[in-house]
């Protein structure tokens, strides 16, 4: 069990070392998730790995649609902020529901993002 744990840990950072090929990376993370889910103590890690893989997929899609390589490897919060800054409120909303982002965090992110682009009108309304 200990052996497995250390193995997975070694793999996780290895996977996130940012190879441009996302396919194998996502697969690695999913494999890690499976391994984590085999033991009872690692439910949290398993969920985190699952979300990580999901996030990478969304980020990958976003990069394709926006043609900007700025999404991969940023956190969920960063992704939402970037979406709002780019005026893509629908995707931001989608990410929010996808990862069950709490209302409170959502408000902070939105306020910061709107302040960055100085969209005071939207800030006022919101």
């Amino acid at each position, binding site marked *: 069990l200990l052996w497995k744990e250390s193995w997975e840990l070694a793999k996780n950072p290895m996977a*996130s070392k940012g190879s441009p090929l996302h396919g194998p990376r996502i697969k690695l993370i999913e494999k890690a998730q499976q391994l984590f889910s085999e033991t009872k103590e690692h439910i949290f890690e398993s969920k985190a790995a699952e979300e990580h893989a999901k996030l990478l997929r969304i980020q990958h899609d976003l990069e394709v649609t926006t043609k900007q390589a700025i999404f991969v490897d940023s956190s969920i919060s960063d992704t939402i902020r970037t979406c709002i800054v780019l005026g893509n409120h629908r995707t931001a909303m989608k990410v929010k529901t996808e990862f069950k*982002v709490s209302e*409170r965090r959502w408000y902070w992110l939105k306020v910061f993002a709107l302040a960055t682009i100085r969209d005071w009108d939207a800030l006022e309304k919101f």
Partner: protein
Amino acid sequence: MAQKQINILKNIRGKKCLVIDPKLSGSLSLIVQSSQLKEHGAELRHLTTEPVETDCTKMVYLVRAQLNLMKFICSQIHNDTLKGLQKEYFLYFVPRRAVACEKILEDEKVHEMLIIGEYPLYLIPLDEDVLSFELDLAHKECVVNGDTTSLWHIAKSIHKLEFSFGTIPNVRAKGKASTRVADILNRMQAEEPVTSDMGIPEINTLILLDREVDMVTPMCSQLTYEGLLDEFLGVNNGAVELDSSIMGVQQEGKKLKVPLNSSDKLFKEIRDMNFEVVVQVLRQKATSMKQDYTEISTTTQSVSELKDFVKKLNSLPEMTRHINLAQHLSTFTSKPSFLGRLDMEQTLVEAQSYDVCFEYIEEMIHKQEPLINVLRLLVLFSITNSGLPKKNFDYLRRELLHSYGFEHIATLNNLEKAGLFRKQDSKSNWLTVKRALQLVVEDTDTTNPNDISYVFSGYAPLSIRLVQHAIRSGWRPIEEILKLLPGPHSETKKSGFASSPSFDTIPGSLNNLEKVADGRRSLVLVVFIGGVTFAEISALRFLSSQEGMAYDIIVGTTKIVNGHTLIETFVE
């Protein structure tokens, strides 16, 4: 020590290029001047991933035994070979060679090209009363990776000290690493006894303390002058580096190194004071100087009075230096965010209002404030509560990963392994510890302190309270409290030394004034394994200066740390 380094260079004839580990250069510069190196025909370079450009045919590497550094060296040698350059390579490990490192060299097939040696740099004096082992990763290596090489190193350093100062009769240790060091030291003393004909040893007591025992103190923001300088500007090997404009020098964008040690008399006077008081003291000094000046210019003075005045003027550069620094610091300390954090630290240490703290930290994460700041408070939160309830623990972990990225799962794992941020498994005993050791002191007078709690404006550092007890009476009276803190404790007393009857009386007690022959007070060496903060050193200096204190205190540490640098080692 300096001689050894020069000997290494002397033994290698002709021009040579000395390539040193950048992490070592600061501490080495405290021992050897770079001009001295040049005298011996050495070119000085830092070891980086970049190949070294030099005409020298002799390369001398001076590095810590770290695996990644070995890779740099290998690639440099390969690079030379590819270019067809024939060079001689010398490799010196600081402080000693490691099998794993040599294995890499063998794998890369460069081992036989190197002449390998050791440069036993054990203790570096950072100041008159502070020694450092310069092991910056010791804490993390021990608690996360279970690597205890550094403990041997620490014991060896202390044993070497004993050869100059006599065997230390009393050893008190608290914490897993500390008791191990005490054991190793014991064995070394048996294997290689110190032949002492010096009578009473100069160091009376050795107190070993794990950083792990008190992780609360470093997580709090230090409020002494030197402590604040370290928190905001980062003190490195007794100097801070900052923009020259701050120091009033008109040189755009240039960095300036300001030395900070006790050879600066004003600094020696104010370094340990609470910052509030430092500002007052500086103002007072400035006004008195101004007064003197007006007196000089309005009335006729005798020559001796003039001389006094000129003498005072000599301290002017120091005054300007510290007024500039203090002014720069106050731009940080007056920020609402800093005051808010202090307030929160106070609340956490008092451990009374769980929900308030939880919400504050949650909001910090939501606002994506700097990760290290968040983790500092979170660690403080976790320790004072003996961990967090599972629900809150998982919630905060999830929010952290969402806000800062999933790669930090490794960071969280490190912190959990180190016991710094974890699930609650038992009721917190922080309140008991806090009460028993009087860690929170009401009405702390920062101007005329009568207790060490002045360094944190009301919180007396746990570590130093323990030291206080250890010096006064040993562990026995506080054994119940010690059991509540992490790690075992041990206490040994060696007697039977020739001509030292004083050891038969109660050692360490206040009424037992042991004096070394020339009337100096004997020493207590306090060693922090895993680092010490400036505020704690200040508190120890304060203890040492108290009336009725029978000892001078010397501080030994693996590294000078603060909450920031400590947490940083855990972040992946």
